[in-house]
């Protein structure tokens, strides 16, 4: 008649294609969970998703004003900041909400069967919707105030893919671990704080490079600094969206071509990371219902 499912005591081995097909079969739950989260987030608020758009608008306004007054180092600081910050928000909010995703849905996990991967994926999905909405604001800002001069926009997809893979890998990893060790959610908060300042979002990567290379053993420090994959992602977004005009290697000390190569490498490593995190998640998810 229909296909036979077997369940045994063995934690099943992850067969990517088979599991991906099962996940695809359950995609309706993923869409519904994302939709639910968004609705719940904006429920009983008159403006709804406009809040999501308002956030970058206010950011842009405030920072434009502040930097005009203070005459800071980076030209057009607000759009520069936002180019990297939106990517960072997708990453960090996915991680901190993703860590809780299984626990927050304990009721579902204990009562209904569905592939558990959907929970962290839905978290990433919600953040992705915010990311897209806010990016639209940012791009509109660029076009309105600087004209359409996004000539290296083609780097954008490289950065985006890398960002998504890194986010999915780490989110899955922490959400699986957090079921057993609730320390993870606290650790994530601290780690993200450090990580944020290790990433050239509020400051320019070029500045770091200059000051590091000036110091003794600075080139090693600079290489270590570049081990952070999110740095590449953020630089990719900054390169794709932001233009400072005068110096082509400021604030991002790499050309679009160089970034595309590095981001491809980062993506490949992140893809392996997704596989490993998925495998861990998959083998642990069989016991979620018990551990909650």
């Amino acid at each position, binding site marked *: 008649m229909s296909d036979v499912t077997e369940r045994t005591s063995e934690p099943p081995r992850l067969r990517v294609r088979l599991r991906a097909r099962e996940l695809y079969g359950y995609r309706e739950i993923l869409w*519904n969970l994302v939709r639910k989260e968004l609705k719940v987030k904006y429920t009983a608020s008159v403006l709804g998703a406009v809040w999501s758009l308002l956030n970058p608008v206010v950011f842009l306004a405030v920072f434009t004003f502040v930097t005009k007054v203070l005459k800071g180092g980076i030209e057009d600081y607000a759009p520069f900041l936002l180019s990297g910050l939106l990517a960072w928000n997708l990453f960090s909010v996915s991680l901190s909400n993703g860590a809780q995703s299984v626990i927050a849905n304990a*009721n579902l996990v204990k009562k209904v069967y*569905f592939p558990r991967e959907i929970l962290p994926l839905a978290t990433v999905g919600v953040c992705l919707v915010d990311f897209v909405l806010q990016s639209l604001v940012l791009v509109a800002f660029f076009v309105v105030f600087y004209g359409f001069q996004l000539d290296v926009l083609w780097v954008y997809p490289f950065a985006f893919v890398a960002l998504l893979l890194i986010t999915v890998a780490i989110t899955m990893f922490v959400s699986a671990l957090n079921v057993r060790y609730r320390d993870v959610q606290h650790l994530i908060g601290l780690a993200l704080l450090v990580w944020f300042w290790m990433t050239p979002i509020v400051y320019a990567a070029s500045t770091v490079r200059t000051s590091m290379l000036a110091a003794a053993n600075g080139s090693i420090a600079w290489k270590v600094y570049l081990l952070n994959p999110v740095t590449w992602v953020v630089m990719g977004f900054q390169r794709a969206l932001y233009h400072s005009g005068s110096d082509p290697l400021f604030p991002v000390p790499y050309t679009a071509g160089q970034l595309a190569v590095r981001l491809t490498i980062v993506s490949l490593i992140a893809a392996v990371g997704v596989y490993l995190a998925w495998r861990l998640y998959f083998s642990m998810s069989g016991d979620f219902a018990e551990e909650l």
Partner: protein
Amino acid sequence: MGTAIEVVDVSKRFRVFREKPTSLKQRLLSGRTRAEDFWALREVSFEVPQGGTLALIGHNGSGKSTMLKVIAGILRPTKGLIRERGRIAGLLELGAGFHPELTGRENVYLNSSFLGLSRAETDVVYDDIVQFAELEDFMDTAVKFYSSGMLVRLGFACAVHVDPEIVLIDEVLAVGDESFQARCLDKVRSFQREGRSIVIVSHALDVVRQLCDHAVMLDHGRVHATGSPDDVVREMRLTILHHDLEFAREEGSKEVEIVDVVLLRDGLPLEGPIRSGQTLAIQIDLHAVEPIGDPVVSFALHDATNSFVFGDDTARLGLDLGTVEGARRVRFDLGPIPVTGGKYWLTLGVHSRDNARVYHVQDERYSFEVQQAEGRRDQLSIPVTVRMQDR
């Protein structure tokens, strides 16, 4: 007909932590965790044929809900194997996927996706769901404003409008008012007509007897009895009595009380099954605080299908008990038992001669088993002698 679900030697161990170490520090400091093993299921095996309806019954903590979760794929068995053919929908909890902030309509779509319906499929059954739940006017209201009854109705309506080959139902038949319950049962029957395989976990033993064609009783995680629902439900009732006599179905004023009952086989206390042909005696100790005039003691035997088999009482047998005060013993001696194979339940009663007053009735509280001689398939054992004569 193939099998829809095969459960083969399934055991499930839970680790019970005194204090669950959920942080790394606790886990490291406590060294070897003070986990205790608790076997919720031990070597459970049964099958559900395609189109069959199986009931899982048992006391609280017997493992039946765990079994259902293992079948549903929510829990992984510690040992053993489960094989399933077809799409499963579990009604493990009505409206498990509901979110209070969403409207009824949104929740129908959300919950249905957990039960395996796509958006398009939900569109098709949406009106039926609303109608079934009788919530036409409330679908655009957030469900946090629903009464608990409305929630349950909506949850059930979603759950029964899915299209699975295997349906798992956990204790959801006992919700709502009577008319709603009746409709739920109708829905389950229509599932049966459509040839779906069903597993029901329920405490409502009468429902089990009405609906199911097979039952499995779990006790402390093991299969205690399996077979026809009538048999298993009786077994269940019997063990309830052994577990906790307060559950026994008893009634009466207890002006004359049945204080002790002993079954005797060939004059000795009964242990194990009785063979047809052996004699059985029912020895009943009565106690009356106040003197009671002319009571009658009766007994009745029912078989495994709950059919009345045989009964008698002291009045018909011509014994006048007179006025009973203090302790008395009444003993019925039954001749060679003519019935064969099966389990029999004994109901005892003490009442006034005109049946106007019931002093004490113990309903199917005692049982004995009659064992069939090997190789015989008789319904009755009739004493037969045979001889040969010259003509």
